């Protein structure tokens, strides 16, 4: 295989992952790590390193489009970032002390968890009840009463609720990010949507904005540890950026339910493969 063929394959995988990731509010890392290890034989530490860079790329790349449409909530992002960045530091620290084989198992389990979350995930935007007086008072104090323009529904208003619970979940999302090189959007989006009462589109855009900062914290630890291999990370970062641009452009137009179902099948399959890889490397 030539360097060009390797680069082209990694770029193509990353392009697809970035596109899907942007549509679903995840950094694409959930697809990239298993794809690089299972399809291309890349060491899992390099795959995680390339993934964490691609997570930053997705976030910074598509945030430009999201922010221009004034969907993402910058203040909500900042409140949750305090928790995700702390979590990412804990995760990156844990990652240095774990044997490599266990990363396959952890990642496999993460894929199953993500598939489950996607199945039970629902859009709470229409069913959201009126916020309690204390929630409303807190949201007003923190300037978290927001609105956005929806193509079909016009102006949609929302009040951010249960900030403490959101921060706890964000801390866990941060640990996942630091440990396994994923954005953690898969945890943050449903938490913001279902628990905090944020419309799905705002939650997705805000998550995209946040995960870059979270991933940067872990990426800086990874790069100094030598886990970011430029031969792998460069085509992956460029591919993800291109894919994310495409994804964020059609973001407000398509119903993500169709992609969601297809995605769950892929996730379960990859989860099984990753667990098998762990099993065969520790019992083979």
């Amino acid at each position, binding site marked *: 295989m030539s360097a060009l063929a390797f680069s082209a394959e990694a770029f193509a995988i990353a392009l697809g992952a970035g596109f899907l990731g942007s549509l679903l509010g995840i950094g694409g890392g959930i697809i990239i790590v298993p794809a690089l290890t299972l399809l291309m034989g890349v060491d899992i530490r*390099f795959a995680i390193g390339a993934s964490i860079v691609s997570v930053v*790329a997705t976030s910074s790349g598509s945030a430009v489009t999201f922010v221009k449409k004034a969907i993402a909530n910058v*203040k909500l992002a900042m409140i949750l970032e305090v928790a995700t*960045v702390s979590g990412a530091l804990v995760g990156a620290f844990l990652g240095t002390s774990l044997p490599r084989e266990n990363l396959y198992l952890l990642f496999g389990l993460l894929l199953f968890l993500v598939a489950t979350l996607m199945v039970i995930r629902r859009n709470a935007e229409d069913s959201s009840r009126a916020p309690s007086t204390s929630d409303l008072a807190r949201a007003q104090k923190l300037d978290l009463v927001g609105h956005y323009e929806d193509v079909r529904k016009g102006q949609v208003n929302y009040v951010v609720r249960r900030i403490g619970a959101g921060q706890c979940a964000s801390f866990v999302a941060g640990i996942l990010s630091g440990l396994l090189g994923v954005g953690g959007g898969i945890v943050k989006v449903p938490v913001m949507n279902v628990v905090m009462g944020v419309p799905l589109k705002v939650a997705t855009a805000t998550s995209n904005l946040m995960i870059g*900062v979270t991933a*940067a914290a872990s990426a800086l*630890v990874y790069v100094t540890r030598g886990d970011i291999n430029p031969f792998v990370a460069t085509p992956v970062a460029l591919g993800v950026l291109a894919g994310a641009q495409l994804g964020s452009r059609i973001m407000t137009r398509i119903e993500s339910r169709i992609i969601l179902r297809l995605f769950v099948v892929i996730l379960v399959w990859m989860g099984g493969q990753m667990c098998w890889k762990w099993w065969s490397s520790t019992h083979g």
Partner: protein
Amino acid sequence: MDKGDKLHQIEAMVARVLQTGVALSVCTLLVGWAISLTTHFESFSGDQYRSQFLDLEAEFPRTLQTLGQGLASGSGRAVMVLGLVVLMLTPLLRVFASLIVFVVQRDRIYFLLTALVLVLLGVSLVMGNTH
């Protein structure tokens, strides 16, 4: 000016900062990628290929010092690493831009929160270096 306008002002500024950082990084990555592809144009046998690109022992700059040396000699790998580092720094710029906006707006709660995020990011740099 009402709150919605102010908020949009923050978001628009943040977007410009991110756009510049990403564009800068993409250019650097493309240059580094092109250099490394032209220097590795030949095909590798399975083993050579693994050790060149995929093994944990693969050679590329891992410290600031080797990065500097690599850049001085025009190595494609080093240019790619530089591009990746620029990309990693874009979110930090975004946080920094938000911090400035919150100072100008005298928004104390969000200034403190943003400052805390920056401090934590600083800790990540120190933590990586001590390993």
